[in-house]
């Protein structure tokens, strides 16, 4: 029997084994660690491409293989390997200490993510899935701020807690179907068990991807963790995995009905609006990006919730696009933080002059996330809108609500990225004496690559990503659209517009300029000289309802983690009061317990 006939076994276990090896390489030999990591991630990327081309694949060669690469998992797999490679590259310049541990965990995370997406057995899936949560904990707390371990803990508890529910759901699925093999499961949603199983599986994927209300770990991790880790796990791998699982659950494992689709659509819509609303008023660069990472998940969930081919394709395409621009944004944030040692928006500003490459890449990625044509984020959002409109054609009365949510969310995204761009890259620097320079090549290269992919996937959306990656993943040749979007013509028109505008600007630019002091009429000049941008939208807090919402949010009133923690505290206090250390009281409990048992044994 040819056990090692194909790559599936390799791509899962090689990174894990080499990752464990890396843990033991001494800090002095970090060049060896880095070489090893570079080669491994590159090989895995090549192998994933191979798997994508030659799918479907199965391993081991038995009746019910534990691993399977089909259209959907091969798509997620190639994404995972791509981001692992870029993260490794970026981290060579970014990570300063604990190289062995850091890169060891990165490789193990790569292996276990691939294990989770290629799993064809639910137990194998949950094993890799859970291990990845522990790796997230370790990676976030290894380097980062003082509070990083606390945020890492929150992430682990939320993700790990929902994993326990997922085990329960898998048990129910096993009871209903008698098998763990994912390709053999097809459950109709009727009755308590199927719904419970579906809900808990969905919750696990929501927590991983960071959908409301299981999102609250993500902004914390984004703020406190190292930017490379945030870009790697919460922004790309966890998204790919979460949405992969959601797609797998709702497309393959269960037969969806209108109720379950409605649930997905509402979760998606709430996620978009809620998270982007919170993002508007954030003061921390990375935390703001963290809320956007939550908000974007909503689009993917809506896409899958529409349950029509355009919507699903849009959702999956958005999953890929989001990972691309979101890691670009986080990696740029990391570069900024590396140079300025802060991510507080009030202290940043005017960096475009010093870090032009980072600025341009960040600009492209933020236009992309805001859904500006002709970038990739626009195309996938466009497809999702198409999916929603098709819902309307099928007499679904709520379609207009979903469409409004999705579009309004997009508008708010632009708004908050205007603020971010201004506060970080434009305006005046908070300290003009700073001599900053661009981050090193190993950090800028991944950022440039990601920004270019944003353009390529946008301009050549139909020719490259949709034809090569997305259509095969949903198993279709072509899609029918209601609206027509031709990126070629649009791009040329937009380019012409930009060039014309540039020419006009150049022609009308004043020949000479002079700097004069600010006339402030007796006000404090310091306060007026610099507009940092951090408070751009703080006035929304003046709206009564919104103001109290924001105030509650700041107290974590919508945080499911804090709510559960506080309600647990009540019970803990109660039980602790019972344990008063008085021996006779304890003996009375024993006696009462025994009497209860007597009663049960004699009466029954």
């Amino acid at each position: 029997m040819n056990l090692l006939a194909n790559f599936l076994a390799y791509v899962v276990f090689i990174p894990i084994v080499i990752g464990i090896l890396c843990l033991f390489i001494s800090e002095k030999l970090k060049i060896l660690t880095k070489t090893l990591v570079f080669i491994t991630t590159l090989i895995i990327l090549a192998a994933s491409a191979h798997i994508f081309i030659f799918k479907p694949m199965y391993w081991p060669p038995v009746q019910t293989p534990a691993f399977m690469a089909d259209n959907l998992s091969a798509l997620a797999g190639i994404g995972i390997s791509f981001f692992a490679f870029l993260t490794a590259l970026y981290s060579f310049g970014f990570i300063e200490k604990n190289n062995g541990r850091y890169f060891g965990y990165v490789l193990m995370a790569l292996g276990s993510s691939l294990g989770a997406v290629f799993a064809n057995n639910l137990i194998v899936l949950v094993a890799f899935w859970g291990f990845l949560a522990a790796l997230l904990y370790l990676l976030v707390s290894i380097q980062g701020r003082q509070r990083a371990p606390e945020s890492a803990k929150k992430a682990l508890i939320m993700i790990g807690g929902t994993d326990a529910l997922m085990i329960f759901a898998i048990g129910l699925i096993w009871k209903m179907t008698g098998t763990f093999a994912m390709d053999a499961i097809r459950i109709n949603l009727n009755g308590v068990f199927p719904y419970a199983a579906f809900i808990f599986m969905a919750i696990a994927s929501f927590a991983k991807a960071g959908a409301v209300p299981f999102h609250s770990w993500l902004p914390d991790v984004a703020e406190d963790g190292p930017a490379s880790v945030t870009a790697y796990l919460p922004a790309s791998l966890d998204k790919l995995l979460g949405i992969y699982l959601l797609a797998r659950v709702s497309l393959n494992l269960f037969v969806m009905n209108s109720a379950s689709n409605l649930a997905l659509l509402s979760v998606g819509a709430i996620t978009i609006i809620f998270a982007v609303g919170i993002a508007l008023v954030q003061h921390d660069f990375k935390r703001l990006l963290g809320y956007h990472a939550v908000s974007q998940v909503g689009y993917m969930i809506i896409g899958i919730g529409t349950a029509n081919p355009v919507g699903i394709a849009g959702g999956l395409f958005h999953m890929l696009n989001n990972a691309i621009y979101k890691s670009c944004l986080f990696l740029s944030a990391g570069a900024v933080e590396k140079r300025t040692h802060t991510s507080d928006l009030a202290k940043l500003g005017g960096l475009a002059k010093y870090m032009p490459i980072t600025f341009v890449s960040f600009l492209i990625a933020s236009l992309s996330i805001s859904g500006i044509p002709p970038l990739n984020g626009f195309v996938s959002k466009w497809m999702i809108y198409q999916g929603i409109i098709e819902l309307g054609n099928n007499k679904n009365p709520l379609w207009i609500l979903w469409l409004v949510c999705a579009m309004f969310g997009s508008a708010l995204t632009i708004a908050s990225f205007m603020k971010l761009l201004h506060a970080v890259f434009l305006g005046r620097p908070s300290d003009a004496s700073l001599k900053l320079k661009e981050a090193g090549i190993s950090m800028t290269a991944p950022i440039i690559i990601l920004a270019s992919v944003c353009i390529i996937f946008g301009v050549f959306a139909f020719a490259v990503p949709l034809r090569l990656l997305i259509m095969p993943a949903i198993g279709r040749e072509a899609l029918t659209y209601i609206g027509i979007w031709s990126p070629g013509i649009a791009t040329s028109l937009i380019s012409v517009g930009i060039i014309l505008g540039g020419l006009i600007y150049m022609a009308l630019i004043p020949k000479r300029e002079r700097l004069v002091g600010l006339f402030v009429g007796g006000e404090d000049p310091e306060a007026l000289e610099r507009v940092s941008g951090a408070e751009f939208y703080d006035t929304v807090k003046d709206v009564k309802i919104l103001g109290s919402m924001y105030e509650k949010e700041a107290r974590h009133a919508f945080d499911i983690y804090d709510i559960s923690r506080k309600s647990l505290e009540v019970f803990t206090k109660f039980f602790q009061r019972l344990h008063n250390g008085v021996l006779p009281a304890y003996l009375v409990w024993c006696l009462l317990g025994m009497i209860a048992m007597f009663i049960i044994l004699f009466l029954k």
Partner: protein
Amino acid sequence: MNFVPFFVILPLAAAFLIPLTGKKIKIAGEVASIAATLSLAVLSFLVAALTAAQKALICNIGKWIAPAGIPMIVDGFSIFFLVIINVIAFLVAIYSVDYVKRYTDTWKFFTLFLLMVAGMNGVVISGDIFNLYVCLEIAAIAGYSLVAFDVDAEALEASFKYAVMGAVGSSFMLLGIALLYSYASTLNMADMALSIAGKGASKILPFVSALFLAGFGLKAALVPFHAWLPDAHSKAPTPVSAMLSGLLIKVLGVYALSRIFFNIFGMTPQVSMILIGLAVISMVVASVLAFGQTDIKRLLAYSSISQIGYIALGLGVCTPLSIMGALFHLFNHSIFKSLLFLNAGAIEQSTGTRDLRKMPGIMAISPVTGYTNLIGTMSICGIPPLGGFWSKLIIIFACIQADRPILAFIAAAVSALTLGYYFKAATPILFGSKEYRGINNNIGKRIAITMALPMAALAVLSILSVLILLPDTGRSFLGDAVAVLVRGREWNSAISGAMR
């Protein structure tokens, strides 16, 4: 030659020798206990190989045949415990060498330690219920005095509570045994099973059942009989805490309970219901309480109650799969809980505190302690691919298989709670806060190799423990133990026949 009696003879002999030589030779206690526990561990593997072939080893002491004589029986269920007891005891004995340096009369410690081992081994191999009780008392009394070994106010209070409540439990048991003797007219457990089966229903059995459930439930620390445990397990010297939480509650509580209810009385729906009820209360209440703890060892103690709940749940659901889950969880729990207690001792030694609010972060100070603690924590929280994940998975699946989805859901939810309170503790333990570094003089003190080795060994064991689920090598070890319980009373008929 029959090896079975040596499980009791060896530790007893060593415990006897230590006081004789202890005052003259300073390291007598250390040497004798390591030698004794090492040979016991080797012996247990040897006997495990023998039982796997023969299914049950029976040794009639002094060639007296039951019911006149006292048989010692090692079947699949006993050997499962013997291996756990003696391997853990050996590792804890090594760990103790450095730990007991803080005491003056170390030989007293090791004498009591070996007595406890002898008592536990005796419980497991005893073929008659009165001897089971006597050995149980030996182990328990050694436990009471070891808890008080620090001889400060808190330790004495804890020991007193433990002794009083333990004595109450023991008197329940003794009463139960006396009633049972009058009813079945034999003390031999195998004969007793046959005799009870022959007599049919009676009012005395439910009464005795309740007494035993309370008595052994108290030893196993199931809520509401648990109140002695948090004090005793947290105030005892750390190696003793590891023995108490890792072994004693399981041998004295779970082993005896399942031996009696599965093999002698036969499981009834009522007993199963009571076990499940106790299990659910223990799992939930203890893990809620664990959230409020700030002392590492106290948190571990509460978590022991909660995890014993999982084991009782598996036994109570009473299907082959659930029993396998319960025993596998017991196996895992004895490994990682002793590991976590040993870690707590090492942390205290390196940082000078057990207070979770004042942790300087052990990863930076002692990576061995840090990593082993991480592995232990991950395993008990059920993070794959460690042992605890698989045993909880099996228990949850077994509940679902037995058409008890509510229980499965509770088990899953408590698993999430466990993750919560363990990482609430592990985060300061591992990463801590720099401001507490350097306050205490002990900080940065390297832990001795004799402390590091047992922790590393236990960590490796908790990674590898999943291997006993593999077919061939492992499954016969776990499978034989499960088979004994699944066959119930029928198993004792076979033993009864083989004894003569």
